[in-house]
């Protein structure tokens, strides 16, 4: 386990209104950290602050490059007539090269990700036709395409039924283990936190506290 991110004495503000004060925590590779708290406590704002402050190292110290961090937003504007195939959509995540076409290595990489996220059967379908659970797997797969070391998932399971939630989190856990990934997962679902979380960063009353869940490492 190596340290990915170290936050010390960070104040999270929105339009000069303080949301969280003096926040400190660390994020390690190979772990799932759930970020929990009531609506409006500043979970998403915290993430945006972390990404915005990437270059100023005072309070937010990332040990990885900016393009090794991927954020999966809560909402995406994908209509049901969205035409691009799932495979092509995942390929959009490959942003580290300039060539207009994908290299052999990149093609293999995409194929492997499609395999491991269980999307092989529908990879040629347009993304607009996929179910909600499938779409979330696709977003996850796109984020994995660039081989990130930290993945931030914003309420990714909010619109899913309970089976799809558990399936997605199982998949996330298996990828964490395989790729030594660090994941921050904003969620409202206490059941998922207990079942899958390694750490819980709970935000309430303008403070954040980090706890280990279940005692395993």
């Amino acid at each position: 386990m190596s340290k990915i991110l170290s936050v010390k004495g960070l104040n999270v503000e929105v339009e000069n209104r303080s949301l969280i004060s003096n926040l400190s925590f660390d994020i390690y590779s190979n772990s799932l950290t759930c970020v929990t708290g009531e609506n409006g406590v500043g979970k998403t704002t915290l993430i945006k602050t972390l990404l915005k402050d990437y270059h100023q190292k005072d309070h937010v110290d990332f040990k990885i490059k900016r393009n090794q961090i991927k954020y999966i937003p809560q909402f995406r504007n994908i209509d049901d007539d969205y035409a691009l195939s799932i495979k092509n959509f995942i390929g959009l995540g490959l942003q580290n090269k300039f060539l207009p076409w994908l290299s052999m290595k990149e093609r293999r990489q995409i194929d492997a990700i499609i395999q491991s996220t269980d999307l092989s059967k529908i990879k040629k379908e347009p993304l607009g036709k996929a179910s909600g659970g499938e779409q979330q797997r696709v977003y996850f797969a796109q984020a994995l395409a660039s081989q990130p070391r930290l993945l931030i998932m914003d309420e990714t399971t909010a619109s899913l039924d309970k089976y799809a939630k558990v399936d997605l989190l199982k998949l996330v856990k298996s990828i964490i283990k395989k790729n030594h990934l660090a994941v921050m997962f904003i969620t409202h679902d206490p059941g998922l936190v207990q079942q899958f979380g390694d750490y819980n960063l709970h935000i309430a009353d303008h403070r954040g506290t980090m706890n280990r869940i279940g005692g395993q490492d």
Partner: protein
Amino acid sequence: MLSYAFMQYAFVASFFISILCGLMGVFVVARKTSFFTHTLSEIGFSGAAFGVFAGISPILGMLLFTIISSLMIGTVGNRMSRRESSISVFSAVFIGLGILFLSLANSQSSYATSILFGSIVGIDFNDVKMLISLSIFIIIIVLLMYRKLAYNSFDSVGSSYNASYNTMISIAFLILLASTVSVTAQVVGSLLIFALLTVPASAAQYFSHTIFGMMTLTFLFSLFGTWFGLYLSYTTNWPVSFFIASIEGIIYLIAIIYNKLSDD
């Protein structure tokens, strides 16, 4: 038919316009900026009229107007540009300005007609040369920023968090679009170029689900429309714009029906 030089130029010009539509149209449709493209063609009309009024060439006036408005949209009002009401306001104001400039310049209304509707059978070798240079220029720029442009166009939310130079890519695209509209409008008119930039690409996305496939189909649809339209116009003496617009419309209709049938 092909023994006439003006017909040869028209066919060659259509080929390159189709390349531009394949390359740009797919992104225009993915970015949901079809209506902005429409507005852009009217801004172009206004700019050309201004060019005539100010005594500079119409193409310079067009480039000036369309690029400045693209920069404005790209920096301050990307969301605003998609709102229906602001699009109507923009269209109305710019068409009004265009008419004003033309009347101030004492130019006949036939000139307005030629900017709006173009005359693909009235172009000369210089127009063709300009089109070819523009096509090469746009192909190179699009290839250079292809991955970023594709991410930005097909996943605007995801790329806004995860891609670098995102705003710059949007602005660069709008400038390319402005140049495309301005230069091609000289040849086919600003109304038809709007149709060619949006209709074939909208149809293509019902048949193909890869970016490359959509571009190829868009190119083929607009090539078929312009070439067949030229042929029909030559034989019937009816306006070529009518045939091109109708053929593209029919292709779109077929695409919709195909989509309905394959859904059931």
